[in-house]
């Protein structure tokens, strides 16, 4: 909302305060100021000139040599290039010394040997946006149409001395979508008087009701409709003052009739519509819901198809306007229109909102209807419009407005006590201060003891409950005057839950192990949403959740794994010469397990993607690319860190992963994720070198409770180490052998670790040698050789029968 301070001044005194201060004060007490536009041009060197003579420049075909009276009988010779300059015109002259927008300085000069003492200006040169300029003056200088005097300052005439404030009006303060509303706000803020516009109108003997009859078919959608007939009008250009007002608010002047309706829209916040009575097609107005499929040609030339939840204004048969949104082309006011039907109505906000949304039209009118208007002022606004139309268009306002429906309003009555306000605000505001605030707001109120009962005025639709009054009191008392306190209450423990602490530990661990925390988008493409899905998600048999109306295909589906977006992030980095990158993300995936349309489960999963060198220390000859075991190691470390037992890595296959370098991760026999190399063809798609990823159900890990009580004493007896190497089939998984060793080596075998694997030369084809390091330990004594030998024999015999394993000498 753009508010002209020149205009605002007509209703409330703001002379004592600078625009900057005014903007700050309003921001602090009521409505946020977005921007202040200081006057574009205030200059004593910019005056009205009267062109006394205009001849062709002796030395230039395209230039005119003008003699211009610039006041006090001073005649200036000015060279002017505009086609439309002529003697007898009142024009805008920038005298030497003037500085025009853009820093253009006017000086006395010579053009083709003729002196030129200033410049006759076009409106563009004065900083007025071309969209507001009438066609006549678009390509030439501006010529005053009204009576002005040579020498008169030009800036005020063109409103160039106006400071304009742009407000960001919140949806609850629809009252501030009008200059009057802003005037009330300013008056309350400064405790100033407010001067309301005069809306009295002289009415002819002849009655509007002789010309029109109004019927409302749906009073819910259209509680009130008033129609006023004004005849013998001349449609013409509006006077400068009116044009200035509209331009200051960002509205393009059109003609006096349309301009007056727009002026009232800005002044009162009440949209009005003028129909050309003679082209309305009947003498009755019927407002009704449209029929399905009914059409109307709107003012913008578009044909609109209506449906039964759109309110229309009809002549009994045909729609002539989409109520509150846009008028129809058929009865548009145009040059030659002499009789108008002025609509002043109140429409249901929801109905207008729906209509505006369906047709994609957000007009100045619909925005206001949508938010709710002061129904008690509809008629006053119409009267003010009629008065202006009569005076500007020479029209005759016929006898009283023809009405249907009602403008009655049941006000909200709100009672509160001083004590409860003080208690909720936390500032010691007195009863008297509170009633003063009511006075400043011009709210009707009564005081009984310390109870204040307020009747909210209809212009303030946002005042409904006690808390609304709390806001009024607090903001006008001044938020700055409220003290800083902290809540008084019982001490709470607060803090993070065990799960939240474990989650943080996971972050700390992953970062310390070399990965960077990342955040990717949850919404991805349909294709990406289908990839890299872990078997434990896959088996839920869900498809990615799809947005009803995505903005683009890039973000249309919810992810089932973060890996695809992490790969895109790697690709982004590599494309920028960052070749060694390790990223992880801890975030939700969305599985609609209860069926389409139900709220999905959100499972927190841990995903990572690593590419490039993992160890990079070239001057000591260490440069190793990431490999499968780097990521596996990170995961194993994590499981240790979280003290999670029962994890197994098993050879597996997953689409998009290298079939020989993929492991499924099981927790107590249930798959919870995978780790592996991205399939070479997928790597290529992403322009990536060897890249490894994992995706693990973190919720499953965090669900493992780990309440450790006591500890295992540190034994003083020595441990005994034994190395055993077996030759087995190449396909035998080492972990399986280790597991078997562990089982058979009991009761004293404490740990088994693979320390070497060998295949190739000196080894039978299809065989490999796997070497294990075994640690035996007894808590209370030193183990005997017999005990170790016994275990060893058991292990060797078992592996031989079970895996055809041969112990190497």
């Amino acid at each position, binding site marked *: 909302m753009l508010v002209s301070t020149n205009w605002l001044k007509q209703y409330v005194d703001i002379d004592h305060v600078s625009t900057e201060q005014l903007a700050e004060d309003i921001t602090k007490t009521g409505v946020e100021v977005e921007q202040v536009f200081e006057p574009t041009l205030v200059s004593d060197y910019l005056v009205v000139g009267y062109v006394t003579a205009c001849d062709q420049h002796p030395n230039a075909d395209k230039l005119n040599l003008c003699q211009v009276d610039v006041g006090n009988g001073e005649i200036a010779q000015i060279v002017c290039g505009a086609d439309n300059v002529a003697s007898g015109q009142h024009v805008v002259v920038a005298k030497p010394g003037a500085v025009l927008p853009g820093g253009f300085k006017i000086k006395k000069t010579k053009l083709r040997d003729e002196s030129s003492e200033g410049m006759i200006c076009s409106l563009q040169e004065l900083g007025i946006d071309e969209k507001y300029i009438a066609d006549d003056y678009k390509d030439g200088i501006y010529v005053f149409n009204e009576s002005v005097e040579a020498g008169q300052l030009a800036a005020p005439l063109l409103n160039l001395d106006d400071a304009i404030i742009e407000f960001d009006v919140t949806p609850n303060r629809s009252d501030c979508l009008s200059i009057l509303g802003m005037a009330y706000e300013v008056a309350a803020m400064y405790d100033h008087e407010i001067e309301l516009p005069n809306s009295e109108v002289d009415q002819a003997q002849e009655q509007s009701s002789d010309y029109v009859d109004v019927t409302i078919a749906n009073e819910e959608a259209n509680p009130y409709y008033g129609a006023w007939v004004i005849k013998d009008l001349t449609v013409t250009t509006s006077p400068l003052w009116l044009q200035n007002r509209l331009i200051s608010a960002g509205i393009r002047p059109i003609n006096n009739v349309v301009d007056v309706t727009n002026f009232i829209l800005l002044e009162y916040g009440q949209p009005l519509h003028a129909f050309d009575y003679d082209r309305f097609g009947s003498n009755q107005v019927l407002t009704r819901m449209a029929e399905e499929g009914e059409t109307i040609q709107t003012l913008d030339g578009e044909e609109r198809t209506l449906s039964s939840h759109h309110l229309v204004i009809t002549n009994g048969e045909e729609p002539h306007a989409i109520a509150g949104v846009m008028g129809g082309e058929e009865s548009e006011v145009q040059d030659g229109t002499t009789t108008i039907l002025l609509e002043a109505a109140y429409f249901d906000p929801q109905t207008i909102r729906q209509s505006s949304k369906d047709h994609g039209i957000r007009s100045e009118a619909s925005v206001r209807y949508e938010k709710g208007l002061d129904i008690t002022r509809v008629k006053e606004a119409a009267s003010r419009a009629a008065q202006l139309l009569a005076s500007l268009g020479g029209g005759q306002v016929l006898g009283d407005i023809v009405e249907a429906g009602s403008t009655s309003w049941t006000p909200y009555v709100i009672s509160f006590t001083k004590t409860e306000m003080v208690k909720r605000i936390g500032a010691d505001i007195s009863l008297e201060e509170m009633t003063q605030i009511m006075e400043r707001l011009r709210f009707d109120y009564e005081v009984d003891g310390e109870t204040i009962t307020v009747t909210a005025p209809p212009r303030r639709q946002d005042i409904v409950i006690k808390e609304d009054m709390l806001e009024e009191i607090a903001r006008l008392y001044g938020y700055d005057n409220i003290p800083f306190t902290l809540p008084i209450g019982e001490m709470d423990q607060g803090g993070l839950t065990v799960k939240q602490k474990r989650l943080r530990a996971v972050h700390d661990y992953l970062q310390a192990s070399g990965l960077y925390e*990342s955040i990717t988008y949850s919404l991805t493409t349909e294709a990406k949403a289908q990839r890299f899905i872990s078997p434990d998600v896959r088996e839920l048999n869900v498809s990615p959740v799809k947005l*009803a109306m995505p903005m683009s295909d890039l973000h249309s589906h919810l992810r089932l794994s973060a890996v695809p977006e992490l790969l895109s992030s790697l690709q982004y980095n590599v494309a920028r010469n960052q070749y060694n990158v390790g990223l992880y993300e801890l975030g939700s995936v969305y599985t609609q397990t209860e069926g389409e349309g139900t709220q999905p489960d959100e499972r927190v999963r841990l995903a990572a993607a690593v590419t490039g060198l993992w160890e990079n220390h070239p001057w000591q000859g260490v440069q190793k690319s990431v490999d499968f075991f780097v990521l596996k190691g990170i995961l194993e470390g994590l499981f240790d860190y979280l003290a999670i037992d029962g994890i197994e890595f098993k050879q597996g296959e997953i689409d998009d992963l290298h079939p020989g370098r993929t492991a499924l991760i099981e927790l107590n026999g249930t798959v919870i994720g995978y780790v592996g190399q991205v399939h070479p063809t997928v790597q290529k798609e992403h322009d990536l070198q060897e890249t490894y990823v994992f995706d693990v159900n973190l919720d499953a890990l965090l669900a493992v409770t780990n309440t450790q009580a006591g500890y295992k004493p540190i034994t003083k007896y020595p441990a005994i180490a034994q190395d055993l190497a077996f030759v087995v089939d190449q396909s035998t998984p080492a972990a399986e052998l280790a597991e078997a060793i562990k089982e058979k080596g009991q009761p004293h075998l404490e740990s088994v670790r693979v320390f070497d694997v060998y295949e190739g030369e000196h080894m039978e084809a299809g065989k490999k040698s796997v070497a294990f390091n075994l640690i035996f330990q007894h808590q209370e004594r030193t183990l005997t050789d017999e005990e170790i030998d016994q275990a060893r024999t058991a292990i060797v015999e078992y592996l031989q029968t079970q895996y055809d394993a041969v112990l190497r000498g």
Partner: protein
Amino acid sequence: MKERLQSIKEEALQQIEEVKDSKTLQDLRVKYLGKKGQITEVLKGMGNLSKEERPVIGQLANEIRDAITEALDTKQETLEQAALQQQLKEETVDVTMPGKPSQVGGSHLLMNVIRDIEDLFTGMGYEVAEGPEVETDYYNFEALNLPKGHPARDMQDSFYITEELLMRTHTSPVQARTMNKHEGRGPVKIICPGKVYRRDTDDATHSHQFTQIEGLYVDENIRMSDLKGTLNTLAKHLFGEDRHIRLRPSYFPFTEPSVEMDISCKMCNGHGCSVCKHTGWIEMLGAGLVHPNVLEMAGFDSEKYSGFAFGMGPERIAMLKHGIEDIRHFYTNDVRFLKQFHQV
């Protein structure tokens, strides 16, 4: 014999003195002190000496043996020291060469901001509450005093999945959910961080996905001044003790009154500069007293209970703190960006 011993001593000490390596030294040890060494050889002739002379010579021989032994040991020590010095000298490294890099990753700036705020509030007795990102229309809007058709829904254009299901547009539904769990009994003190989604085209200042962190405190006797005090603590914690705050009226359907909090501009100290658009203030967050409808819908008696709520965007805070100009940096995961920020 006496002379003979004396000359052995002088010769030995002389030779030991001149030794340059431990092999020669060892040879000298054998030569003089060994089983067949010179002193032993001399002492073999002891039998020829008189009874009186024997102890004298014996003692002298012992003294000389000790002197040579000491000289040998000292020399040995000296040579070893020299050898060690030599070895150390040869082992010298260029300490300015780069160390072997440990793999160290790092945390995301947005998460740093969120954790920092969580820590501040958990220290004040708040709990961290979370909720779903795919939310029901009820919790995202209706329970927050935004019934269907409410004009303020336009302020938050949403990604719907079905008519009743959408990507949450703010973290406020977590407040409603948590209050529900409390079954009408206070206090409720929570801080709610999380991802949120709005229909915005990604550009330097908009992101269809971003983060929010909200706080809620519901109890008997919560005052607007408590909100002011809490926000003041937060602002100073985030931006420094010398910052000031101001509240100004705003509108959110779930709070009444609603305010926005500005913080005095750090760049110009409140005097006005391009960062604060010459106002001296920078908008930081939205807040207010919990709307009675929201309390009632969540099962709280709004006559007995009151509360405040506030919500902010970690992106905005991070951008202000570090002068980051493009919100997309938070979501591209460019390591050149990620590497710059540290949790501590």
